[in-house]
């Protein structure tokens, strides 16, 4: 074997080890979700076992079905993502391209809201929502999620907008396009990758959020992150069911990741033409 081939094999082996380390928690969850409770508890852990879909059947169609919770999570996450993107794209564009008074302050202010620890603001949020009767409602939770997803999305998008060369925009103006039309027709297609990345992250953050959800939700709106804890009671942890719910909760995120993968790769390497900048 040549030295080059040996090197390739070594690299491959190392990557396999890393891959295994990173995917281990997921593999473990999937395995546990297919086991019976005694198999989950078996020590040493059973790698070979008779798989069963009992846990999935119970969590999906049993008395404490998590289907409504998955639906709650979907409504909250999709809602948050749509509203966030509708507001973040123009805001990020403005911060990247427009000249206006107090721009620096506005940029900093948006970022500053991210610095507050969530635990510190949960009581005021609770009170506000309570007073307008929005506790345990979709609009209430989406509104609160906007408070952290919007600044995050704006800051992520600004960097993408800044990377688009001015010349492209100027060419559009010369052709008589309005600013809005330019944004829609010229700029947005350029930052599609960035938008895809932002959508994935905003969706993910909303999907995985727990702290606000547990306080601001109730019986009507209860995302899967909160419902999952019902399998950890004071009496016992129902490991197989917990694993099954975790796998089900992971699925939409994985699907979204796969669908958006092409854009994400593009987004991470950032647009074809470099050389923009902030005005």
């Amino acid at each position, binding site marked *: 074997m040549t030295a080059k081939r040996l090197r390739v094999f070594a690299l491959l082996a190392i990557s396999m080890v890393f891959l295994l380390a990173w995917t281990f928690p997921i593999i473990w969850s999937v395995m546990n979700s297919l086991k019976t409770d005694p198999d989950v*508890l078996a020590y040493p852990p059973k790698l070979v076992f008779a798989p069963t879909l009992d846990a999935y059947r119970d969590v999906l169609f049993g008395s404490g079905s998590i289907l409504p919770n998955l639906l709650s999570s979907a409504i909250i996450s999709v809602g948050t993502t749509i509203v966030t993107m509708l507001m973040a794209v123009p805001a990020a564009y403005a911060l990247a391209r427009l000249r206006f008074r107090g721009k620096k302050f506005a940029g900093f202010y948006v970022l500053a809201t991210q610095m507050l620890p969530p635990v510190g603001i*949960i*009581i005021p949020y609770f009170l506000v929502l309570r007073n307008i009767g929005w506790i345990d409602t979709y609009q209430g939770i989406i509104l609160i999620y906007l408070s952290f997803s919007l600044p995050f999305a704006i800051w992520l998008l600004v960097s993408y907008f800044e990377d688009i060369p001015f010349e492209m925009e100027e060419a559009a103006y010369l052709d008589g396009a309005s600013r809005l039309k330019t944004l829609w027709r010229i700029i947005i297609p350029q930052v599609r990758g960035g938008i895809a990345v932002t959508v994935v992250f905003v969706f993910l953050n909303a999907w995985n959020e727990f702290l606000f959800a547990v*306080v601001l939700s109730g019986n009507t709106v209860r995302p899967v992150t909160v419902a999952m804890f019902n399998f950890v009671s*004071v*009496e016992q942890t129902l490991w197989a069911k917990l694993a099954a719910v975790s796998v089900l909760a992971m699925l939409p995120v994985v699907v979204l990741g796969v669908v958006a993968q092409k854009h994400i790769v593009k987004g991470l390497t950032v647009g074809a033409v470099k050389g923009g900048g902030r005005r």
Partner: protein
Amino acid sequence: MTSFKPTRRTLLKTGTAAAAFATLGPAFLRQAAAQDADLAPYKSAQIDWQQVSGETITVAVIPASYFENLITLAPQFKALTGIDVRFEKIPPAQIRQKSVIDLTSKTGTYATHAADPMYYALYVANKWVEPLDTYLNDKSLTDQAWFKFDDVIPAWRSANGINGKLYGMPYDGEVTIQVYRKDLYDAKGLKPADTLEAYMSNAAALNTPNDRIWGAALRGVAGAGQNMYIYPSIFREFGGDWMKGDKLTVNGPEAEAALAWYVDIMKKYAPTAAANWNWPDIADAFSQGTVASYIDAHSSASVINNPEKSKIIGKVAYARWPKGPSGKRTTSIWNWGFPINSALPEKKRKATWLFIQWATSAETQARTAHKFAGPTKRSGVNRTSIWKDPDYIKLMNGFGDNFVEATMGALQDDTDVDWRPRVPQWPAIGDTMATAIQSALSGQATIKAALDDAQRRIEPMMRG
């Protein structure tokens, strides 16, 4: 005899009716099940159960079988009182946080919630909850002869009282006992420990990690209700006092001896992973036959006797907490009680009391325990009379030798209201102590340094 010739119309009619019954029938039957005969034992109480009919209240509970059983019976309560109860299930770690937010903001979202006894001092200092004697002594609201308050386990009543006044009615509770494998003990000619010293030597005799059996396990994970569930008992048994005058003291010589005992047994005879275990993990390990003994809540008996999971059914026996060097046994007197939220308007407060009275009455306690139709039976009923009921005793003794005797002995004689310091600052103090215990266990700090550090952090909390 007329022959029956079905027409399209009659077929449709019959079909629709049958379909309607198939969908709604069970609901009607359930509703019917919550009628007359079921309600008779409650109606013998000399109060007007319907006095605030039409009210709706929300009750926060944790996901646990003993509350599930209660939720199943809620239609009976509705039929009895006309009050609608909306249950919200919140994970145990978050129910405290969520109810404190609700109480602080006085929004009255939860009429009552499953409350931790250690929180009453905080609730009462802020006047967030109502003293329950007002309701107990009001003849229009409570028939004392029927409710029999004295029948409620005294230890739990005193745990839920501040300055002699009751603030939360115990619904389901627990007590700490010693759980051991009688087969392993018998094989070595050992007896359940009567003292902490004997407990340690039993653990040493049984500890054979090569055979995958460890001598003992106690809660190791850090948290106010976790490692700080076990340590306070040891601290008290070593003769420790939380308060010296007005000052909370956690770093005296008794504390050092107590923590040293805990660290010693955990390091020498517990599985290494137990440093991160809470009680379900201990019960799981015990049920798989890898732990010879543990000291924890008596309610874990249902987990270690779960026929679907446990490998040690029939090999389990129980004993009381071993005595400490002070000669005392001190078990937890923990329970989930129901307080009344002060922020509620009067009618809702009455509705809440009627709910609490119904849920904690001997009748409902029995119906959610040995008389419950479902598979899960409660081992934490709040009534002394039920603990003496032969049917209940028979059911409980199915958990293993000496279960009822150990539990009742512990509940009646081994308790101490000051098991943990009952001060409003407890939640923060508990967390600080929990961290100190963990740092001693993990070897990050010496026992003395860990306790001194905890004392330094707790002093400013006590000042205010």
